[in-house]
């Protein structure tokens, strides 16, 4: 709860900063503030997992939520750091944007720390509404408007579904408290609404992680949104939704019923395949990464299949994926900031004109493709390993085939960087991009070299 409160306070501070004209200091101060919050979050590590009863049992501070919180905070630090330059044309609104990001983080923290469905719902809505705003934040750009509109319509539709699900669960059990629901859910005589409610909630979350067939919004919204928002969606929002889905499932019922596992398997296969195959023919990098994100959602769904043991793996996968995502978006923003579009052509000749950024982007793409020594490899490997243990060899084979396909489009970008000639001179890139990109990829590689750092946290 401390974390949540401090984050919200930081958000409020950001808003106030506008009033006191502290715009120049805003980004550094927010980053420092977030680092402090990260410290708090890590400090909580020693505390026994317990439900924070001081706040009406709304928040549960356990290892799972703590670990994910820390990850979210790290991601937010990167995203905020990138915002400074990204919004430099919009100085007057910068505190709004940053405040929204911080509030978004608050929503994210609420989502993984909930021990009451009310908290869950509030978290998800805080996160979603922040994203609607961010997606549509380029007011004069019709694409940004369209992205915001699409995201909003589909998102609130999904919210309605989730809400309906919560309602049915409440109706079936009479509780919003997760622990109580779990107790009741395993007992006999539970009304039929309960599974329906569960399913509706899960479907809502599947929408949030952009799993097929609920993925249609993702490419459009990713493409239309300002790049920094896309970065937020594809890294932070996706990771949050995935963690929440995991927590929701493991929190509400002890075991998935086999038929429902089948649904997850099908959705996972569909997401992987559709994501990868669609990504092959994309010219817009953001759109391509959107489809890549869809396929990663499919991969992450594998973790659901070994619900009791896969928390560590999921944390690792999300961390690896998000860090690679941050690194690649840092480069993408840096490269495309002056061109007005995100077509692959912008990357032509980057290997010569800016070898460091090219190397970072290459590394992050390789990580997403699952090439060792990057953490993406271990992430995939552990997922596969867990899935095999759970007896889903077939799913793993599909996953592997998809990994092979994915190399095709990741390498398209790499090829553009190294084999094509640059069309125009690239202007200098501010240092912050280098800083973010390099530190994200270094973290990624560090996770690759020492997977135990993360793996052992939750096991």
């Amino acid at each position: 709860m401390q974390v949540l409160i401090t984050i919200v306070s930081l958000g409020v501070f950001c808003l106030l900063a506008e009033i006191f004209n502290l715009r120049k200091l805003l980004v550094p101060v927010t980053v420092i503030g977030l680092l402090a919050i990260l410290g708090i979050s890590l400090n909580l590590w020693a505390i026994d997992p317990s439900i924070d009863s001081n706040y009406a049992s709304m928040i549960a501070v356990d290892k799972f939520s703590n670990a994910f919180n820390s990850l979210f905070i790290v991601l937010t630090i990167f995203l905020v750091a990138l915002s400074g330059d990204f919004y430099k044309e919009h100085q007057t609104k910068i505190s709004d944007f940053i405040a929204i990001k911080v509030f978004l983080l608050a929503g994210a923290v609420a989502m993984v720390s909930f021990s009451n469905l009310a908290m869950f719902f509030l978290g998800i809505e805080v996160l979603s509404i922040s994203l609607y705003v961010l997606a549509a934040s380029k007011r004069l750009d019709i694409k940004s408007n369209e992205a915001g509109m699409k995201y909003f319509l589909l998102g609130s539709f999904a919210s309605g579904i989730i809400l309906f699900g919560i309602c049915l669960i409440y109706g079936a059990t009479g509780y919003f408290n997760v622990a109580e629901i779990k107790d009741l859910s395993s007992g006999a005589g539970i009304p039929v609404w309960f599974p329906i409610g569960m399913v509706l909630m899960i479907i809502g979350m599947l929408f949030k992680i952009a799993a097929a067939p609920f993925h249609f919004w993702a490419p459009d919204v990713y493409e239309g949104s300002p790049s920094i928002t896309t970065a937020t969606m594809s890294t932070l929002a996706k990771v949050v939704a995935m963690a929440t889905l995991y927590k929701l499932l493991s929190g509400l019922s002890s075991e998935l019923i086999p038929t429902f596992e089948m649904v997850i398997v099908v959705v996972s296969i569909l997401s992987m395949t559709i994501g990868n195959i669609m990504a092959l023919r994309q010219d817009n990098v953001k759109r391509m990464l959107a489809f890549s994100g869809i396929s990663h959602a499919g991969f992450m769904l594998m973790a659901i299949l070994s619900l009791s043991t896969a928390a560590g793996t999921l944390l690792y996968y999300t961390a690896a994926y998000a860090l690679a995502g941050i690194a690649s978006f840092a480069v993408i923003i840096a490269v495309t900031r002056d061109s007005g579009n995100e077509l692959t052509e912008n990357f032509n000749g980057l290997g010569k004109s800016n070898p460091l950024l090219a190397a970072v982007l290459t590394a992050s793409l390789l990580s997403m493709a699952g090439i060792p020594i990057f953490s993406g490899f271990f992430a995939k490997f552990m997922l596969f390993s867990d899935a095999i243990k759970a007896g889903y060899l077939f799913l793993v084979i599909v996953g592997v085939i998809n990994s092979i396909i994915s190399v095709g489009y990741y390498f398209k970008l790499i090829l553009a960087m190294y084999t094509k000639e640059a069309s125009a001179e690239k202007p200098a890139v501010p240092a912050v991009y280098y800083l973010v990109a390099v530190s994200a990829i270094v973290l990624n590689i560090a996770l690759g070299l020492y997977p135990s750092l993360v793996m052992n946290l939750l096991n």
Partner: protein
Amino acid sequence: MNNILNQIGIENYIFLSVLLFCIGVFGVLYRRNAIIVFMSIEIMLNAVNLLFVAFSTYHQDAEGQVFVFFSMAVAAAEVAVGLAILVSVFRNLGSIDIDNLKNLKG
């Protein structure tokens, strides 16, 4: 309160809510005017709210009603943002037909 539920039965509330919810869903699916789509979503949310209240009564538990307040607040916030986006869209596009939002595809 008990009496009313005894007389009518919780199932009927559920059916009503589901019906309302479905009306909302169909509204979302078939209408092309963004405002009407918004309203349909509101219908969906309100159907759920209704059900929350019914369950709250059924379980003799106030939490459900408290939740409705959350959900109404959230819905209001959502619509506020939604309308803002809609205004922005209308300014750029001169229309609020969602079928015209086809710049992003492929």
